[in-house]
């Protein structure tokens, strides 16, 4: 590419953002949808797996081992493996993305429940709580900070991986990156990449705040 062409092709051209705002907004919404769908599915499966691992302790090692195995499958490969079966659909994007969240979600959930002091558990039993009540009213709230920490990491890394899902035509901010690359026009690339980083930080902040609101006692303990 010639020097002249490069000079006319700045890293960012502000008019483009105004002109193509609809397109940017659409990509952002698609990105958000894919992230929420994937993390929700991941959280649901992780909750089931964690429940099994907590109820049947010997299952904990195979379950974390399996989620760890899923995590090491390259994303490009996993998308590629699913395309022949599910086509270039949202399912093909969401299944791998959800699978990648399992490792951190299950690990953190188990760590959270393990961190509940035995004395607290005994006290709950002593107060006459049934095991189900104990898990829901005592252990789950105490494990919540760990679960939320896992959720934050899961969301942030999923936002990053959704950009890769653009290779199977699922839109999102990655599509802007691919578009810019295909046309050697840098503005969409810069916008797509920057917005995906900003989106990750914003969602991280949102979950952090939700977590704070959900665990008021943690703040009280910190201040006193």
């Amino acid at each position, binding site marked *: *590419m010639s020097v002249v*062409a*490069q000079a006319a*092709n700045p*890293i960012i051209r502000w008019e483009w953002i105004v002109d193509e705002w609809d397109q940017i907004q659409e990509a952002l919404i698609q990105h958000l949808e894919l992230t929420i769908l994937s993390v929700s599915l991941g959280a649901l499966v992780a909750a089931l797996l964690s429940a099994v691992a907590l109820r049947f302790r010997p299952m904990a090692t195979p379950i974390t081992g399996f989620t760890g195995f899923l995590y*090491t*499958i*390259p*994303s*490009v*490969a*996993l*998308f*590629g*493996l699913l*395309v*022949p079966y599910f086509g270039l659909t949202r399912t093909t994007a969401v299944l791998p993305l959800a699978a990648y969240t399992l490792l*951190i979600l299950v690990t953190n959930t188990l760590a959270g429940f393990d961190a509940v002091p035995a004395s607290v558990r005994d006290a709950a039993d002593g107060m006459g709580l049934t095991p189900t009540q104990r898990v829901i009213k005592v252990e789950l709230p105490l494990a919540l900070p760990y679960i939320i920490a896992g959720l934050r*990491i899961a969301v*942030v*890394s999923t*936002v*990053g*991986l959704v*950009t*890769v899902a653009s*290779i*199977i035509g699922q839109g999102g*901010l*990655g599509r802007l*990156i*691919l578009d*810019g*690359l*295909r046309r*050697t026009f*840098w503005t969409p*690339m*810069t916008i*797509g*990449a*920057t917005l*995906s*980083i900003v989106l*990750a930080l914003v969602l*991280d902040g949102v979950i952090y705040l939700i977590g704070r609101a959900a665990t008021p006692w943690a703040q009280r303990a910190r201040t006193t």
Partner: protein
Amino acid sequence: MTVVVFAQAAIPRDIGLFEFLFGAEYWTGAGGILTSLWDTVVLCAAVVVVATVVAVPLATALAHHGRGELSVTWIVTLSRAIPTFAVAGLLVPISLRRGLGFEPWPIFIALLLLALPPIYLNTYTAVKDVDRGVVDAARAMGFSERHVLFRVEMALGTAVILAGVRVAAVQVVATEPIRAFLGGDGLGRYVRDGLGQNNDNLLLGGAILVAALAALTGVMFGLAQRLALPAGVRRLARPRTR
């Protein structure tokens, strides 16, 4: 002028999966699997070597002097959040404007950011967690600071440090295929071409190659990890009952 020329491999549309994976003609030659594999391996090796050379001394020094505790908490959070595709995407225009081309700098830097945290974290924890009694004993026996560092702290931490390198290597190999979508080649090209040409078997074959290389990397580093343990540490690590 079109800059992104997606190289059209001479792979027939109706190719069978096994035909592609086991056909000698697809492995050799320009654009063959071996060339792509080599491209990937060279880039990944360079990334892991540079990351190790940067992260291990830095983390060792900080942990040895008991500093940078906060860096660990920060890096744990950051390490899973690095959007490699976005980072590489941001770097491509910068690289091109500087006349450095599509490759390899953008993807190299993006992968380096991915490789540094696990190596740094494991080295830091490894050195930090060495039994202080052992370190004191070494000092009492007249080991110099340098010997304490190399022969005690790093030697005892070898397994954990290498585990960090392994995690980094697997992640780098697993992520490198996005390079094929950022104007480069490497092993990810068959997935890209399979998608672009709507050729499912090429796509599947490419995905299998990418996944296999990542798995192989994990296994090989696992073996290296075992072999590289200092004899004394290996003896200690062996269960007592046997």
